[in-house]
């Protein structure tokens, strides 16, 4: 019972070449392929204890919304895909803005001192809005710093301009661009090792023109590639999604779009809805850590 060649991650042309010359099993290859060892190498095995220790040391992006952070076990986990879904106006974009800023705060006050990348697909990135939120956060930050008076840390460390500079904004108009961005990010991230957050707002908009199975395949591929980068460079991935109507034979109900197979790929799903002008409700629908919990909170406005 030998491992066949077609189980290796080889390009089609190479596979065909090997198979036409009747090299069907990996054991037949040996010297003819110098990188065979690499291709046959499985991922590293870790014990659950090692995984646990690593997770404890891994950070998370705090939202600075206490009930939300508590229910998430500290904040948005790094290396995972978290989705915010909700109807238009439910606060998804706003919370993304807030996270792009909070990730930049210095570590002593709970931030990660990192950069953020915002990939916008429906022109929702309103820089003036981000600036406003940044100003409010800065005001609070100044108060916080004064209260706790860390002597040698000055105001110059962080300010609104710096915050805006450390958010990289990319506008994509269709799904091919979205896929290209990920390829582009592979190299870009090597030059920007402090990126701690990548936001895609929204993931469903550019996939609208496609049909069901294509949407799943592309969303999957996108998240798969991004999550690989996320584990390598240690950043969090946030995506936003809309709500759509689904029909059963007797009734209709609301559900996040893109379907069940895509849902399977997410690590966390948080449903947002707006209750009043600044009060939001969040329901943790899927999480590695906790079962369904509902909380209410207000955002910095």
């Amino acid at each position: 019972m030998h491992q066949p060649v077609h189980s290796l991650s080889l390009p089609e042309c190479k596979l065909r070449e090997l198979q036409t010359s009747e090299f069907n099993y990996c054991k037949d290859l040996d010297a003819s392929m110098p990188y065979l060892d690499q291709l046959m190498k499985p991922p590293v095995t870790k014990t659950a204890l090692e995984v646990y220790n690593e997770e404890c040391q891994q950070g998370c992006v705090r939202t600075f919304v206490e009930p939300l952070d508590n229910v998430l076990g500290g904040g948005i986990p790094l290396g995972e895909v978290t989705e915010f879904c909700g109807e238009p106006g439910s606060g998804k974009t706003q919370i993304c803005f807030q996270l792009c800023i909070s990730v930049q705060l210095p570590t002593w006050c709970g931030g990660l001192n990192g950069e953020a990348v915002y990939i916008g697909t429906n022109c929702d990135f309103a820089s003036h809005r981000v600036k406003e939120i940044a100003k409010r956060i800065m005001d609070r930050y100044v108060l916080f710093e004064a209260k706790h008076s860390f002597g040698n840390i000055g105001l110059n460390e962080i300010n609104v301009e710096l915050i805006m500079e450390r958010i990289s904004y990319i506008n994509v108009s269709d799904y091919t661009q979205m896929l290209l961005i990920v390829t582009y990010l592979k190299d870009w991230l090597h030059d920007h090792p402090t990126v701690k957050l990548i936001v895609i707002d929204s993931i469903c908009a550019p996939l609208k023109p496609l049909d069901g199975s294509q949407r799943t395949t592309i969303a999957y591929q996108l998240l798969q590639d991004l999550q690989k980068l996320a584990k390598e460079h240690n950043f969090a991935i946030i995506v936003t999604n809309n709500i759509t109507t689904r029909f059963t034979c007797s009734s209709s109900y609301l559900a996040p779009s893109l379907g069940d197979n895509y849902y399977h790929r997410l690590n966390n799903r948080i449903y947002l809805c707006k209750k009043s002008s600044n009060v939001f409700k969040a329901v943790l629908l899927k999480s590695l850590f906790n079962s369904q919990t509902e909380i209410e909170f207000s955002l910095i406005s």
Partner: protein
Amino acid sequence: MSRLNPQMHPLLNSPVLEALLAKNIYTVLNFIETEIKHIVAITNLQYKEVLGIRKHLINKYAAVTRDGVSYYNEIITKSALFSTGIKRLDSILQGGFLTGNIYEICGLPASGKTQLNLTLVRNVAQNSILNVYYIDTKNDFSGRKLKAVLDASKTDEEHVKQIMSQILVKKVDTVHDLINTLYEIKNLLYTKTIKLRLIIIDSLPPLFYSISDFSKRYGLITTMVNVMHVLAKEFHTAIVVTNVLTTSYENTSTEDISGKIGLGKYWYNVPNTRLTIKKFENSSECSIIIAKSNRLLEGAQCNVKITDAGII
């Protein structure tokens, strides 16, 4: 098929192999399919010598012949029926997981599959000193979650550490990684480096969505299934695989929106037992039903509860 090489038989030296290659006889199967007299003509070997090579190759590459009695004894001594740790599930499984079988757990999203997997891996590691493999394809395994489950069930710290060291976690991204992993486990079991009864793969569909060519997809599923069968039957392990059920909302027929099982037609018939898990609305209770099985009673059902300490 296996390519002919000099290590296979002392008479298969370079000039003989070259002569065979020149006549398009590359593999063992090509050699066996060709009549002996043709081989004699091509290679100038004796009839008896070719017959000897043929016999040797068939012996080496055919399946192992086992007589009924010794096969039965082997199964009795080496198989294990081990408890899942969940009493009600054990009762519908007639004792628990039986090695040599592939079990599938499928359910709609958020029906409790990952919770069930964590409970199983915790229970099996707790009740023995053997390792358990947890192969995670979508980065869903959380050490913190496992620890929380162990802490909630009031296990003492030393024991928690030991259980967590027994569980081997592999994070795989692609189906190639998974197949490499399964072959690695096969080698480890063959060299008796580890002792294993349970392998959990959570879950299969994410690995195949990026492969759009269905012929390639099914070919890879077959390869994966073949090595799973080897692990299950020859090395006496039980393999538990998670699959998705998706609601087909594009199909507005009068039938119930019952789930459509992922991975396609070929996989549908592979598992020995298929368990469907369904969560009751607004409750922490789930039902587990045997949807299909070779040996267990189909339709048998049990209700379990999701708690902080796992599924009971």
